[in-house]
């Protein structure tokens, strides 16, 4: 992260070229379609793959946002929709990256297996500011139900986002900005 934040504007679906040009610590604004999924949806997606079934969405070059929004108030596009803790998806993530998933948005630490899959297949992990759900919702301009509607807040939705604010945390070289950022400011011996 440079001292004067240069913002990179990127479009989804992501190309391999776009993700290779992103580095841990880059401040980005994401525009285009992204898909929501959290614990229960990940479980169903990987179970469907294990049974050899076709997924209800094509993951190729797409971005999954780990979120379970609050209900939409009348007059709003979506409810509050900030990131949930990504680590709970770690078990399922390498499988989805193998399917072509190019990006993830969440918050919190990832496992080494996820980092390795990002390097091997060219994927990135973005973090959004946890708890800044009302602000983040402002960048969500449209919402469409895609699959698993019975899961309520955990269903898969497609969001059309405009300048969604995030930071590149894990890049395709395996750098982890959490480690770098914390090491930089640690005053522990």
């Amino acid at each position, binding site marked *: 992260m440079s001292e004067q934040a240069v913002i990179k504007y990127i479009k989804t679906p992501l190309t391999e070229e776009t993700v290779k040009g992103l580095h841990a610590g880059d401040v980005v604004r994401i525009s285009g379609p992204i898909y929501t999924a959290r614990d229960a949806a990940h479980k169903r997606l990987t179970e469907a793959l294990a049974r050899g079934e076709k997924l209800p969405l094509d993951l190729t070059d797409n971005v999954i946002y780990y979120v379970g929004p*609050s209900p939409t108030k009348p007059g709003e596009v979506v409810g509050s929709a900030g990131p949930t803790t990504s680590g709970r998806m770690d078990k399922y993530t390498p499988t989805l990256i193998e399917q072509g998933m190019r990006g993830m948005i969440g918050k919190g630490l990832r496992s080494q297996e996820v980092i390795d899959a990002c390097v091997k297949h060219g994927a990135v992990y973005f973090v959004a500011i946890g708890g800044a*759900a009302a602000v983040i919702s402002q960048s969500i301009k449209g919402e469409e139900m895609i699959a698993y509607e019975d899961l309520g*807040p955990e269903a898969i939705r497609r969001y059309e986002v405009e300048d969604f604010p995030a930071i590149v945390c894990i890049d395709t070289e395996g750098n982890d900005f959490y480690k770098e950022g914390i090491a*930089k*400011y640690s005053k522990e011996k």
Partner: protein
Amino acid sequence: MREINVSEVTKTVSKLCMDSCYYLPEELLAKFKNAAAEEESPLGREILGTIIENAELAKRKAVPICQDTGLTVVFMEIGQDVHFVGGDLYTAIHAGVADGYVNGYLRKSSVDDPLFIRKNTNDNTPAIIHTTIVPGDKVKITVCPKGCGSENMGAMKMLKPADGVEGVIKFVVDTVRSAGPNPCPPVTVGVGIGGNMEKAALLAKYSLTRKVGEHNANPQYAELEAKLLELVNKTGVGPSGLGGSTTAVAVNIEYAPTHIGGLPVAVNLNCHAARRAEAEI
């Protein structure tokens, strides 16, 4: 003897659920504004700015600060001269939670069975209720919804008396450091010391009902709070865990007598969206 109809409890709890999820406590918002001026990391300052903007936007629009509106924890101090009429008290509290979450557009995050079924109850009930009986004829209700991003990062340890103050410090700081970004820092660190296993855990949670900026009345514990805050902020975790000097805005300790052979310690981390609302009936 003062009679209180439980319908009043339902109404109050419903309002507190909504208020706590929409409106960040003022003293906490003021704390973030100070922290934004002092934070060493430029990105950290930006993140604190976003957190402040988010709290102000949520208030203006009356929408949840965070989409994870949590499990609903309800603390109730009941005056012993109160007689509840018109129904069962706990049923009335759960009804208030259901009303607040359904009509307040709050997310329902409660599942009925933790291991096998995990079916959403669809109204965020049951609440987790802690009641204490106190002198008087009033009822004080504090509602503090809390999400799992931070709740999952709590820890409990049965230390040995020989571990002493140093042992407590190490356990608290280790817990915050290893939680890293997951509990959405800047956190409030709730610490319960003493009692037994369940007492320490409850004290840690109860300490989070305290206003940020208030300290333990016992000077030795107040001093330990200050020392822990300083040490926690040296970890470098920072806002959102992306590095910085503002990892926590407060450390709150509650303590209780314990056994000659024990030193239980529990740490409960609260995210920056430290929701709390209270009312007196």
